[in-house]
């Protein structure tokens, strides 16, 4: 029951203190989970930062880790918003090789992506694109034949649509799972 599950988008409101990131990351490291994307920045509240991170893992383990995240003293709220209606965005900078011949073609190509050219050099160009991971990947694939020199992504930031202020973590607690655990659902520790 490791690793190869779905993507989970988790947002956490945390106190802006040294070591918070290590504590949060530690809970995933302990399970051998890879954090595939992470974005941290100030929130609307003073002294608090909001983190968005994407991890891969099975539902049970990610739920468990999320509850344990909530236990960290410096974590104010945390929610797995993967099943919510969310807006999520990522920004990427792509540095691509250009020649006088390809410049026009590239300019045309990036247009439908509403990407911007943020730097133009003699032999290269930096393109800024914002959107979902899929959109960024699509543009990347199109640009690949021209020769990509560098790719830099911010990691996903996400927000639940509507009025919610980032689900309160207690919601995680109050869910009832109804039936008693069936044998097939048991999470074995294994023998040692």
């Amino acid at each position, binding site marked *: 029951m490791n690793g190869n599950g779905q993507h989970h988008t988790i947002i956490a409101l945390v106190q802006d203190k040294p070591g918070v990131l*290590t504590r949060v990351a530690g809970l995933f490291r302990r399970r051998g989970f890879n954090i595939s994307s992470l974005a941290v920045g100030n929130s609307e509240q003073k002294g608090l930062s909001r983190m968005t991170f994407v991890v891969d893992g099975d539902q049970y383990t990610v739920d468990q880790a999320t509850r344990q995240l909530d236990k960290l003293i410096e974590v104010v709220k945390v929610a797995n918003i993967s099943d919510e209606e969310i807006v999520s965005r990522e920004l990427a900078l792509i540095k691509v090789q250009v020649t006088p011949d390809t410049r026009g073609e590239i300019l045309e190509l990036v247009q439908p992506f509403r990407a911007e050219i943020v730097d133009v050099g003699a032999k290269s160009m930096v393109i800024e694109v914002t959107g979902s991971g899929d959109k960024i990947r699509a543009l990347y694939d199109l640009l690949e034949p021209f020769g990509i020199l560098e790719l830099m992504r911010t990691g996903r930031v996400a927000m639940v649509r509507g009025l919610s202020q980032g689900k309160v973590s207690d919601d995680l607690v109050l869910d009832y799972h109804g039936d008693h655990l069936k044998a097939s659902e048991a999470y074995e*520790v294994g023998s*040692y």
Partner: protein
Amino acid sequence: MELTGAEIVCESLLKEDVDVIFGLPGGAVLPFYGALSGYPQLRHILVRHEQAAAMAADGYARATGKVGVCTATSGPGATNLVTGIAGAMMDSIPMVAITGQVPRPAIGRDAFQETDITGITLPITKHNILVMEVDDIAPAIKEAFYIARSGRPGPVLLDIPKDVLAGERRPFVWPDAIDLQGYYPPGEADDIQLSQAIELINQAERPVILAGHGVLISHAYAELRELAEKAQIPVITTLLGISSFPTDHFLHAGMPGMHGMAYASLAIDKADLLISLGMRFDDRVTGRLSDFAPNAKVVHVDVDPSEFHKNVKATVPVLGELKQVLRQMLPVVERKTHVEWLQYIDTLRAEHPSLNIRQTNELLPQFVMKQLSDITEGEAIIVTGVGQHQMWAAQHYAYKEPNSLLTSGGLGAMGFEVPAALGAKVGKPEKTVWSIAGDGGFQMTMCDLATAVENNIDVKFAILNNGTLGMVHQWQEFFYDKDFFATVYSGNPDFVKLADAFGITGIRVTDKSQVEAAIRQAMETPGPVVVDFIVKQDEQVYPMIPAGESVKEMMEEPVPERIF
């Protein structure tokens, strides 16, 4: 008046009603010790190894319910605390550990005795803080104690650089309040959860209560007893829940799991409802999860929401502080008798008498425990190490008072028996404290007998000396083709002479007939005493449910064939 950082630490500890600190000094923490000598209200107990400081603070906390405090210097001092801190984390023990750190300008430069102890203890503390300013000391200490004792308790480590302890003088300002935005320990339970739980309890025909450490932590023993008696529900106590319910109560139905009583495990197997109070379904309790309590719904009451559904899915999780939750429950739980169910459990008890001690002339460790139980009338505080002796202590002592079995449960750290017993006695000087030691575990921490002597800490040590790492030996017997590799101690010291070297009484017991007299002599002798019980080797702990298996695979003690 302006104080040094070290003096502010001392003043803050007094504000938190600390009366004893277990520790051992070194360069980085020396300014603290410099101040400590001027605070006689803060009794300092000098240990021989920092692991003992942490484990003594743990024992003190378990025995008293107060926060245990230990201290060490940077580097090796701090790393020596680690096992003790990890144990406190696993068993939810309120502890504050204060370590000295190299001066701020030296941090990160691989200075002499610099280790990143906040980094090292990140996953084994409830919280830790590197205190970088003198003005942060008092708030950090207030926070540390609050976090350590509230909610699900746990250890908090404060790492304070030497120049924060020594240099600058600042006014001592004790904060009125603490501001921990993300930390709200639960109190009463939510009405919906509560009513769902009550419904299940009132409907159940074959309910059992699984009482865990949470009952002791929240001092909910009176409420537990009331609940059990009102609805006539049998109470099974987990290893750490032992002593939360009187062992000799007619509703007490033993300990479950790997070395629990067969009737307890069999009752869980048959139960239609588990009322799990402050326990976490450790794998030593459940065995194979898919076969655990196959007929039962689960009401799981805990103060830590991350315990719900972790190992066993709760039909109804009830989040709250146990004592308050039980008080909410009591008026609405119906009076019941459950006659058939209780009779059924009595039948199990009769058919699977897990606590019988076989008749033999050999000196059995179980017999020693039983004698000790009888002589002390179940009223001593028993502190154990880890291994076979620990299980016999859990099985054969009739605990009468809350917090009277102190044992390293979650971490299972050998060596706990010596220092934790010292801490317990320091916290509860009026109680008789017996350390039930393995010959293996005793040798891990016996250097701290000197601490007992120096401070006249009157602990009686009973070594159940089987000359082996008995529990591992047992696993080799059952699961590794009796390949007793690296589990036999052929060169154990003479523990009686050793006691003599420490300047205390040592008694050797080799025969059954000497047991009672030795125990009485130890209790009549003032100060620490070591009793070396040379018990039968190769004795196995029964029952046993092998790791990862279920009650179906339980092994009970073979009954010797009767010869007529």
